Structure formats: C-alpha cells, structure tokens
C-alpha cells in the first residue's frame, strides 16, 4: 500500500447507509446469510492472513498494479489538447477491473465454508472474472445473464463456459442485467446455505456496496500515486463510466478527500431519443427508490415500477446505481453526465486509432466524457480516465455499428 493513502471516507454507517441511501432491503430468508457475510467481512478485512492472501493474488495473478498510460495522440486530437492519462484496468487478468472484487469475495466464500458461487453479469466481464476465480479456487460457479446480453456478448459466454462455469440465460423482462440480478437473488434464496452471491457492482443490500467498494478502491489508490509520479500533481478530473458504478467508485474513492479533483461519472445516455427508458442514465434522469436491496436512484415510473433501459453497452444497461454514487451526487462531490451511444462509439473509435487500444464499450463512455471535458477545460487540463476494460468482447457490436 502506498504511504500517502488518504483516509477512507466515513460512509456508510453501521447499517450501510450513505446519507439517505443504501441500507438493507431483502427477503428475510437471506438475512442470516447477509449478517454472516457482514461479520466475516469485518473480520477478514483486518485479518493479516486474509489481506496478505488477497494482496498476493492481486499482484501475482491479476497483474496489479495496472499501468497508467499517457494517451498523447488521443488528448491532442480528440480532447481539446488536454493531457489524458489512462488507468489501464483493461490490462488486469480477465480484461477488466472486475477481478479485483471477485478475488476478494471468492476468498471470503472459502472462508465461510461455502462451495458454490453465483453471479449476475451484463457485459460478461464480472461473469468471466467470477468463473476465473472459481476455477482458481475450485468452487462451483453459476452465472445468470440476460438472454439479450448472451447474444451481444457471446465471446464472454464462451469464455465462462471454457472456465467451467454454468451460464444461465435469463428470459424475463428486457433480458438484460436487471433481470439477471433478479434471477440470481431467486437462486440465492433457495441455496444460501452453501452458496455465496458474488455481486459484481457496488449495489445490493449492505454490506455489498461497502465491501465491493473496498475491494475496488485499489484502482484509485494506485492511480493517485501513479499520476503524482508521472505528472507531478493531482489530476484536475477523474472520469469513469457508471452503470452500477464499481469501477467509478474504485477510481474515485481515494480522490474524495482531494477537493481540487473533480469526479465525473459518465452514464449511458442510450440512443438519443431522450425518453428515460431509452437510456440507462439513472443518476441523471432517475428518482430515489428501492431496487435490488438498496435505496438509491432508480429509473422508475410514477408508481415505482422499474423502467426498461437501453444502452449499446450491456455493462451499463441497468436502471439502478450503487448507493454511494447517489450520495456523492446529492452532496455534490461527484458530477454525473449522460453520454449517448453515438458519443461512446466515437470515443471507442478515437482510442483505437490514436493509441492502439481497443476499449470496452462501457469504458468508451468514459473516454467520450473525457473528450467533452478536455474541450471544456483546454490544453492545461490533466484528466485521469479509468479504462475499466478491454473491448475484445465488443468487436462484433462495433463492426456492425461502423459497418466494417
């Protein structure tokens, strides 16, 4: 751990509240397991054996610390001449930041004596990471994935199956991430004795939002020091995409005490139709409600029914968001912007052609946000972008979009 690490912020409270948000809304059947998880996690986070084992896996298996790469041509040509640094989570094992959280939770699963892990996945990156960690530690793995997403992220379905996981396509609702999460909860209610539900985002009932944040904050802890080393100062802004919000919390968290650093989350603005249900821009267009175990902003109608969502990016296609983001929005510490499918695809193309890096469509929303911000701030700006994942899984979608 770097010496200059700032204090962890004082949220959530003991019951999992980030201001008005978070908390614990869950079927009673799950409460004993959730309480056990909270207790085990509290013990594990201060247990030197656990933290050493996790640190070892992050270093020697997941390839941490990940690099920070300066994107000179990208900044000059597409971001108003601003200096853009990329935190390269795409270089972590399995190709995204998701592995950071999964290694922590799968070690906890072992510690609790459970033998089976279930997960939901949208883009498939969390599913692949979970399947990977389960293969490594010898645990059974079942991944729920919306049928629509199994189609548009077919590469990741194959990867999960190669890794020995069972992938269950979910045909309810819009057949995307929200529906996969519902199905995972249904499995968990029936199997909780021997099964851990490895939630992939900073959402769900307490302690998940806090625990996943803690496992992901390594991104920002590393990046803060790397930016200081490379640029000699803190960035003017940190930019990340936000679906559920795990990579964004991960990179933001260490910068929260740095008041001069703007924290900017880029949500999926969808196809530009403008209606909320054609986006997944929860913080921009949603209202506070309860979904998937937490109080948070939700895309919902006037009677509390969850709206359908749309994004070209499966990983952002979700009508809720982690409760800490809702809190960061209301307190004004972070800003959230909507980035359309077309803007994200322009960001995708720009990074491919100027830097030789194929980004995930999710991360492309952050790149598009950085392009907009760079033009606003000009050439003196220093912008850190969390490049949360690589885009191999998205080449079919991108080829169809660009007609190549």
């Amino acid at each position: 751990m770097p010496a200059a690490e700032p204090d962890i912020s004082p949220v959530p409270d003991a019951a999992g509240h980030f201001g008005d948000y978070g908390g614990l809304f869950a079927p009673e059947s799950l409460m004993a397991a959730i309480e056990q998880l909270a207790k085990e996690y509290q013990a594990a986070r201060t247990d030197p054996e656990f933290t050493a084992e996790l640190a070892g896996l992050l270093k020697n298996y997941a390839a941490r610390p990940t690099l920070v790469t300066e994107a000179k041509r990208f900044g000059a040509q597409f971001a108003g001449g601003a200096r853009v640094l990329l935190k390269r989570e795409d270089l972590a094992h399995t190709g995204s930041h998701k592995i950071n959280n999964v290694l922590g939770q799968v070690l906890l699963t072992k510690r609790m004596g459970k033998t089976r892990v279930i997960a939901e996945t949208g883009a498939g990156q969390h599913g692949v990471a979970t399947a990977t960690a389960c293969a490594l530690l010898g645990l059974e793995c079942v991944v729920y994935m919306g049928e629509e997403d199994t189609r548009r992220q077919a590469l990741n379905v194959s990867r999960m199956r190669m890794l020995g996981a069972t992938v269950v396509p979910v045909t309810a609702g819009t057949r995307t991430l929200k529906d996969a999460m519902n199905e995972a909860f249904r499995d968990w209610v029936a199997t909780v004795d021997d099964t851990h539900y490895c939630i992939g985002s900073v959402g769900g009932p307490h302690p998940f939002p806090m625990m996943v944040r803690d496992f992901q904050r390594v991104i920002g802890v590393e990046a803060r020091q790397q930016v200081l080393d490379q640029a000699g100062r803190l960035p003017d802004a940190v930019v990340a995409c936000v679906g559920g919000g795990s990579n964004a919390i991960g990179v933001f968290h260490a910068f929260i005490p740095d008041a001069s650093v703007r924290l900017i989350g880029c949500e999926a603005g969808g196809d530009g139709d403008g209606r909320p249900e054609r986006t997944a821009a929860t913080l921009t267009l949603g209202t506070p409600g309860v979904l998937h175990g937490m109080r948070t902003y939700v895309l919902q109608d006037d009677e509390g029914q969850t709206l359908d969502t749309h994004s070209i990016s499966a990983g952002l296609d979700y009508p809720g968001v982690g409760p800490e983001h809702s809190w960061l929005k209301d307190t004004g510490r972070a800003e959230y912007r909507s980035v359309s499918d077309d803007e994200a695809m322009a960001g995708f193309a720009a990074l491919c052609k100027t830097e030789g890096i194929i980004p995930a469509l999710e991360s492309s929303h952050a790149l598009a946000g950085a392009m907009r911000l760079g033009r606003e701030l000009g050439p003196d700006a220093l912008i850190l972008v969390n490049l949360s994942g690589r885009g191999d899984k998205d080449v079919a979608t991108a080829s169809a979009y660009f007609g190549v």
Partner: protein
Amino acid sequence: MSTVSTAFEKAKAEDRAALVGYLPAGFPDKQTAIKAAVAMAEAGADVIEVGLPYSDPLMDGPVIAGAVHRALAAGVRIKDVFDTVAAVADAGAAAVIMTYWNPVDRYGVDAFSRDLRNAGGAGLITPDLTPEEAGPWLEASDAHSLDRVFLVAPSSPRARVEAITGLCRGFVYAVSLMGITGARAAVSGSAQDVVERIRACTALPAAVGLGVSNGAQARQVAGFADGVIVGSAYVRRIAEAATADEAVAGVRDLTADLAAGVRRG
C-alpha cells in the same frame, strides 16, 4: 381489533386454521381479478392477500412472476389494487396488500396507508422490507391502525424472530422453506419448526406460506399452524383457464377444497 385478527379468532373458535388466499390485482384483467377475489371470499377464504404487481418480484417463482408481468403489461395501476381491496372487504373477507416496498415508497408510505385504510384494507405484507428499514411504515401503520405482517424464515435466528414478531400485528407470515413462491409436491419439513419458533416469541397467529397448493397439504399444515396461505396454486388456476368465467369458477373450486382442508378432524 382488525378484520384480520377477527378472522383468525373466528377460525380458532371453529377449531380450524384460517385460509389465506393470494391473488395479484389486474390478473388476467382488473374485473376478472376482482370477481375471482370475491369468489374466494364467498367460498370460504378468511383473509385475502391482494398482490400489488411489481416489475421486479424477486421472491416469486415463474407462476406469480409471469402473472404480475401480464398484469403490468395490461396497464394495472395502484388504484386498481385499492379497488380490489374494497371489493374483498365488501364481500366480507379481511383484505391485506402483499407488496414489494418500492411502490409504497414511491406513492408515499403515509398516503398509501391512508388510501389502503379508506379502501377497507387491514394492512400490508412486506416481503422485502426488513425491520431495520421499516421505521416510516411502523409510524404510518400506527397512525392509520393497520396490521403489519413481516416474514419469518427457516434461517431466521432467534434474535431476529423476536425482533420481527415484536413488530408484527394481525399475524406472522411463516415462510415454510428456503426458496421462492411456487407449488411444491410436499409440505416442507421445516414449516412446523418455523411455526414453533414463532410461537415461542409471540401470541400472534402464525400462518404458513410457500408451497401449499391443495386440500391435503392444507390439512397437514392446519395440524400445526393457525393459518394456511395459498398463492401460486390460485394463480395457476387463473392462468390455465380458457375464459374469465372458468377462471373464477376454478378459484371457487380450489377455495372449497382448501376450506375443507383447513378444518381439523
């Protein structure tokens, strides 16, 4: 004393368990759902749980989840749920709403409680509201004299059973098994244990739900519980009916079978 408490008292006086039936409002359409609920009341159900259809019913299996999605697609609104409650109350059964928390939260818990009371409803069953997060509902249910039914699960440790039953009014919902809603071939072996652990903490009636679908299973549960809750089996009768009349008749027949089952001896 609420209409729910009265219904359980009456069943006890008749040496039988109370029959609690569940139907989602608006399924397959508003009027048929109301007719089915009234038929349920007339054929011997003591308490009727009117389901408030919600987009993300994560405690429900495919039968109920499929029904609520159809009701939502057909445009059911919360006003339709209150109208169904009013029809049940008029028919002489106790009516409660079974709802996930977000629709109540969005409506405003106090306004929802007021409108439920005005419709003649007795209270709410809240499957995803933990006692820890229930503060506003405790306040509103006191202000509007409504019953609050929380669930106790086979996995609930003693301390939680105490806390939960301490907040309940009307009855306590004993979840018979670890799983989601849906008919099962046999009554879960853990059901009786859950009821006994509830009884160790409260004098309130304990009603067993999840997996009970016919008169024989109802008879078995009535042997150890104060109430028998049936949901998916009703929804299936309606889903499989060719016409609205057939749906209502199916509900009436199943109620008669179950009402005979809950009579002990």
